[in-house]
């Protein structure tokens, strides 16, 4: 039976659910394909909060300016203006849907400080903001009657004769059945590429599937070299200690007990933007003022009561995975891969250069984050641009006839997957994945230079060759995770190469991208986005201008 919808959303995190609801509100017949149940999506990990200029003393211009500055002037200012202007409405809408944000002493919405922000404009639900919003949006999704293909893995984008996107193939992980789902418009909301690096703060399913699908279909990936390393992750398992620990007043100390941020950001101190703090921490560690390869996060002076009220989950993480009680001991932390600023290039309506293909959320690059994302701007991006992409996709779908795709496409995909499962080989997915991840962390991390990047490029090309020898250890159909893992690795190998290609091309230091062989920001040549295009021989890089509306680039000081 041929399945078909007006708008098909791939992904059911915050961006995906928001896009689906908006497309339905615009009158479209909508469905969602997701590889995990919606509430399992990685958006549930966001602890800190969501930004908006809601206070009378604050303004959207100030929020926008902080974001532009945080992006090291690589963000597109038209998109950033939209983000900041629509933020207050988005928060109010979430509260109306049932998100119970924390309050201030007057019973109004209460906010906290976050890095790189000139006002306290981060709104939050305890320390489980993402999860609270995700579950409330899920409730809306349930109420809406939108069909969700749960635990269905999207494996391919389908195009019509004219090159426009016309649907996807996906397989039902529980039964192994392959489906062909037609659509007049597809919105990719597949989240970040975290697992290209090992370790990472991201969940295990953050493998950038949608980004790779779009890339292979001919959509360029923008600014892929811009990878955010969060300054405070745990050594044992890469888990994140949220910025709220510093937002509430936590210190970062080196082995001499010194608040080393005073050397690089005497005003903002620990609350400078993340790229600045990560670099400073890495320098302490590299120059021998670390403790066991870490620096120390100290919140003891906040007192037990405040820690228990504001940071209970974070304390628990410290207890569980670092064996330290933050009430009595500082916790060792180090910079770790956290977020991808780059992604599928879109306009402010979420449209990619391919007709019928849209993207929103962490997989997309509008670009509001440029060279460095400010904390709590990303949940905001998912709801603001998820809504816009859903509405735009619905409009596009209403003006287009459904393409009639041959049903043999389904059979072709089934055959491709069968061949993959049955092929002989000696390589293992898990081993290749680990090698890719550690190569990326060691050679494409906080500090980069050309020879090391070139070497990483060679290693990745070799891993790509070895992938052809991967044999899949599960030959069955029911819940075949070995097949899923191999497909994810296949996607990630493409994405890793785009990160390296972008990093080699950008011969300057900007935002999260630090080239020790090109230590200065170079606006004359590099106030530009990098674009990675897919070719059979690997990525080819071109550039595109940055949109400036009212803020001319100046030197960044915190």
């Amino acid at each position, binding site marked *: 039976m041929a399945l078909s919808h007006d708008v098909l959303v791939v992904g059911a995190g915050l961006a995906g659910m928001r896009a689906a*609801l908006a497309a339905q*509100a615009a009158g479209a017949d909508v469905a969602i394909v997701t590889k*995990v*149940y919606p*509430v*399992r*999506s*990685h958006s*549930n*990990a966001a602890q800190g909060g969501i930004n908006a200029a*809601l206070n009378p003393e604050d303004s959207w211009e100030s929020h926008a300016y902080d974001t532009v500055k945080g992006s090291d002037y690589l963000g597109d200012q038209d998109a950033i203006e939209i983000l900041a202007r629509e933020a207050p*409405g988005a*928060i*109010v*809408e979430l*509260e*109306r*849907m*049932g998100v*119970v*944000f*924390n*309050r*201030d*002493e007057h*019973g*109004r*919405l*209460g906010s906290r400080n976050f890095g790189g922000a000139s006002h306290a404009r981060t709104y939050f*639900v*305890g320390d*489980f903001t993402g*999860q609270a919003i995700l*579950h409330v949006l899920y*409730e809306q999704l*349930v*109420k809406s009657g939108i069909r969700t293909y*749960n635990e269905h893995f999207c494996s391919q984008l389908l195009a019509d004769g004219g090159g426009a996107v016309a649907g996807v193939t996906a397989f039902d992980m*529980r039964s192994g059945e392959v489906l062909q789902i037609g659509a007049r418009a597809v919105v990719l909301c597949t989240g970040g590429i975290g697992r290209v690096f090992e370790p990472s703060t991201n*969940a*295990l*399913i953050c493998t950038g599937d949608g980004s790779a699908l779009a890339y292979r279909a001919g959509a360029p990936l923008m600014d892929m070299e811009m990878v955010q390393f969060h300054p405070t992750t745990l050594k*044992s*398992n890469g*888990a994140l200690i949220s910025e709220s620990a510093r937002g509430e007043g936590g210190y970062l100390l080196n082995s001499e007990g010194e608040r080393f941020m005073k050397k690089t950001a005497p005003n903002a101190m620990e609350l400078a933007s993340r790229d600045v703090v990560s670099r400073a921490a890495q320098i302490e560690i590299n120059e021998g003022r670390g403790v066991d390869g870490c620096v120390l996060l100290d919140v003891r002076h906040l007192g037990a009561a405040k820690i228990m009220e504001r940071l209970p989950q974070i304390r628990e*993480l410290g207890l*569980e995975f670092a064996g330290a009680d933050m009430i009595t001991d500082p916790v060792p932390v180090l910079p770790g891969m956290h977020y991808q600023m780059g992604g599928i290039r879109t306009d402010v309506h979420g449209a990619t250069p391919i007709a019928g293909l849209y993207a929103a959320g962490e997989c997309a690059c509008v670009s509001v984050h440029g060279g460095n994302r400010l904390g709590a701007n990303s949940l905001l991006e998912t709801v603001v641009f998820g*809504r816009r992409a859903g*509405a735009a996709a619905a409009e596009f779908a209403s003006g287009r006839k459904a393409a009639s795709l041959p049903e043999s496409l389904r059979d072709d995909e089934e055959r491709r997957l069968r061949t993959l499962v049955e092929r002989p080989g000696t390589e*293992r997915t*898990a081993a290749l994945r680990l090698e890719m991840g550690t190569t990326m962390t060691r050679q494409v991390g906080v500090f980069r230079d050309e020879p090391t990047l070139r070497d990483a490029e060679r290693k990745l090309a070799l891993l790509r060759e070895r992938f052809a020898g991967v044999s*899949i250890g*599960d*030959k*069955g159909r*029911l*819940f*075949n*995770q*070995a097949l899923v893992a191999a497909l994810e690795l296949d996607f990630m190998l493409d994405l890793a190469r785009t990160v390296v290609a972008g990093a080699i091309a950008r011969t300057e230091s900007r935002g999260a991208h630090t080239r020790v062989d090109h230590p200065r920001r170079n606006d004359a040549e590099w106030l530009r986005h990098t674009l990675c295009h897919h070719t059979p021989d690997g990525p080819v890089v071109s550039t595109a201008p940055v949109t400036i509306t009212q803020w001319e680039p100046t030197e960044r000081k915190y």
Partner: protein
Amino acid sequence: MSAEMVLSVFRGEPRDGAEHEYRVPLAPGMVVLDAIRWIQAQLVPDLAVRWNCKAARCGSCAAEIDGRPKLMCKTRLDAYRGRVLHVRPLHTFPLVRDLVTDVSWNYRVAQRIPPPATALPAPLNMQARDVGRSQEFHRCIECWLCQDVCHVLREHGGQGQYVGPRFVAKIAESEMHPLDVGDRIDFLVAESGIGLCNVTRCCQEVCPEAIRITDNAIIPLKERVADRDWDPVRRLTRRWRRRAGRSGPPGRTGG
């Protein structure tokens, strides 16, 4: 150094399965999920198991560990050193394969739960203390551990009669919202099956988010149901509040 542990893991499909033993090298701080993933990566690549966040956030990795429903990513192995550790799928839901069960019944129940109803326009004014009561239930990660342990759902036929502790907590989440104006009493009486719960507290004991499901959701809601039978004034007040909310200034709608 090379400490080891033996895990006895259920493998198989609905009518054909048994536990198999695997030897796993131990590392400090290791959790059950690390061991299971090690087994999957090194010994049996076709082991089926759900996981995602590794941080007790996503609710994917529920299993019965030594007979107790727990999150595999939150259960340290050191607590079980020196004996064989049994890992089995949730018992209350139909088996798909190995450690994966079909939990879709829960999502079908979710569709029947009356949604929150705050008729006033946001942003709302409410006190931190009141907000806290509803927030407790927002912590739920839908891991289904409480649904698995509840004897009403575990026993044959119970799933046709009771929505289970998670969904009573969900109703409480809306009921305790300071500005809620919905009336879920009819649903509680006629459809939820809350009367079948005999307050054993097993559900709140297994909740990884430490939500006091029985004390803060089930018991207060049982009281509201009882109230309704003898307290017509309270019932009227709720009705009135609801109507006042509806005729208030128009709120923003989604979109």
